[in-house]
């Protein structure tokens, strides 16, 4: 009876040991050696996140953007990711070597953001969209992130530490409660910089296959 008990426990252990090896350890070995590639201009792709973008990535994570947005482009002929202009090529493992934690996502309640920075380079667009998605995308179900901004009425003084260049004008027909201008706060600015920096369009050779 004891040997049967041990057999049961051992068998149970082996089933999970097998999948830990196959799906946790082996993929790590396979991708650990991946390095950035050198571009013609001497810079590299991809680059590690730092400064504002790193901080913005933290805001992206803490606001839970991943629950509605993916950051992965499926290959041509599988879905319509590229035809929807969400990307120019499929995503490959090298795109993600500096992603920690990964933000691939599994839901597209909103569009994919793998290359949102190349699609929407405008900081003003991102500010208005994050402040109130109805301004730029009427009918959107995205939440308002108004708490990432300081709201200003005409004649209000700039918040401490903000530059005149940070001020975003709300288009006249969409102004409410006399609020005419916005200034993104630290976290808002960082998130906008992160989103503007999302760009997986560089043609990696392995993505052409």
């Amino acid at each position, binding site marked *: 009876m004891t040997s049967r*008990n041990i057999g*049961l*426990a051992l*068998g*149970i252990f082996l*089933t*999970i040991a*097998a*999948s*830990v090896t*196959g*799906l*946790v350890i082996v*993929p790590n070995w*396979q*991708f650990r050696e*991946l390095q950035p590639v050198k571009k013609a201009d001497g810079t590299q792709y991809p680059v590690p996140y730092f400064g504002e973008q790193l901080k913005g990535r933290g805001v992206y*994570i*803490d*606001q*839970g953007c991943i*629950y509605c947005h*993916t950051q*992965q482009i*499926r*290959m041509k002929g*599988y*879905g*319509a990711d590229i*035809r*929807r*202009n969400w990307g120019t090529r499929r*995503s*490959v*493992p090298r*795109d*993600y*070597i*500096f*992603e*920690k*934690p*990964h933000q*691939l996502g*599994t*839901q*597209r*309640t*909103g569009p994919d953001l793998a290359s949102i920075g190349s699609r929407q380079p405008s900081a003003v667009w991102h500010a208005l969209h994050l402040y109130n*998605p109805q301004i730029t995308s*009427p*009918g*959107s*179900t*995205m*939440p*308002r*992130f*108004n*708490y990432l901004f300081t709201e200003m009425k005409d004649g209000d003084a700039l918040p401490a530490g903000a530059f005149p260049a940070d001020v975003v004008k709300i288009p006249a027909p969409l102004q409410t409660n006399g609020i005419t201008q916005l200034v993104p706060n630290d976290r808002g600015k960082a998130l906008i910089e992160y989103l503007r920096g999302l760009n997986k369009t560089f043609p990696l050779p392995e993505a052409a296959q």
Partner: protein
Amino acid sequence: MSDTALELNPQGEAVSRIEVDQSAEWVVTIYWASSLFWLLMATLAGLISSAKLHSPDFLGGMEWLTFGRIRPVHWDTAIYGFGGTAASGTLLWLQARLCQTRIPFPKLLIAGGIIFNVGVLLGSIGVLMGQSTGVETLEFPLYAMPLLVIPYVFIVIANFRMYFTRRSSHTYVSQWYLMAVTIWFPILVVAAEASTNLGAVDGVAQAVANWWYGHNVVGLFATPTAIAAAYYLIPKVIGKPIHSYHLSLLGFWSNAIFYNWAGTHHLTGGPLPAWTITVGVVGSMMMFIPVITIGINHHMTMLGSFHLLKTSPTLRFAVMGSMVYTLASFQGSLESLRSHQEITHFTHYTIGHVHFGMYGFFAPLMFAMMYYAMPRLTGNEWSSARLIRIHFWCTLFGTALYAGAMCWAGIRQGQMMNDPAIPFLNIVAFTKPYLWLRTIAGLILFSGTIAFLINFIRIVQPHKLRFVTPTLLNTERDYKMLLKKESELKHNDK
């Protein structure tokens, strides 16, 4: 049928089963009471999330309640808060019954239950405050995780202790599943935390580890516990042995071998080498073997006893659970196929499937366990058959509406997304009515939970008197009369 006879509570008789149940009363009641608390919290968080998806200004503009925070709190309280404590209570009681032993270390286990609850609470507050790790299903900040893992170690120790000091001469199929859960779950959590939040693995390899865990926390924790419950309850209530011992053996080992590998289908089409996805698809398709064998075993055992569904609350929930297990598993296997995923991946279809499994299979089997065990643990009977009926129909219709609306909306959403001529915001507009249906389904499930909670609160209260017969679905119960007679008794004592 109306039955108003009362008798003195027989607790304290030196019968072996009663002895087991007495040793379990406090421990298991605390775990299950916690599970219902978290079910309520998870349902509320789910309702808020659901409402925000069709009415984004509902509780809008509040950072701690923004969709991206309340949504992970919904799932984490559901899987850890509700699932973790419901399954642990089930595991402890079932193992004690099947081993014919008392529950060991009751104080340690009660302390563990309290620590676990604190862990889920701290983790949820952390996520609402913006401290999420950003790894799906492992969102709880790192400081909360030891509070979830350490109590589970107590449960593992208690489980091994019971198993190896058992008085029964043979082992029953449910016990294999319970042994498996206690070996798998700690390894799962530790390996997943190490490879994601502790930073051992980056990039796409981390995504694979993440979904290995995300799928297995359901498949190697919730599912085996619920299957163990079904294997125990169905034969027990109808008084017939399980259909085939050999099938249960095949079902157990094929489930153990194949489920492990199924999780990577969550990354279909993603930036991963084909082999990782193929492994997940093969694992998912091979799941037909355990699903069919377990299905045959449960449904063939039921054959000829369906009339008992009219009266037994336990059986009704257990059979609903085992039937949805078959359906949801078939759905899940097919869903893993690349051609299916091309449409439904990234859509509400996945959400529909998860709820079909969790609320149609896992939760009903946990409810069935509670309906069966709570009268035995507390010595009281359920106070109202009507509340049980409300709970059942709300669970059935709520789940059906939820899964139906989300899966249909998901298929159309996916087809529209694959047609680049359709603007994205048109797809959002298309899904809105279905998202409203989801909120209604959530309200139905919420009502059922409230009905169960009322019954549960009444049964755990100490009673001097109890109903002589068990509460069946067609028994008319007069709880007010019981309370009245009790107060009269108290009055006479004075």
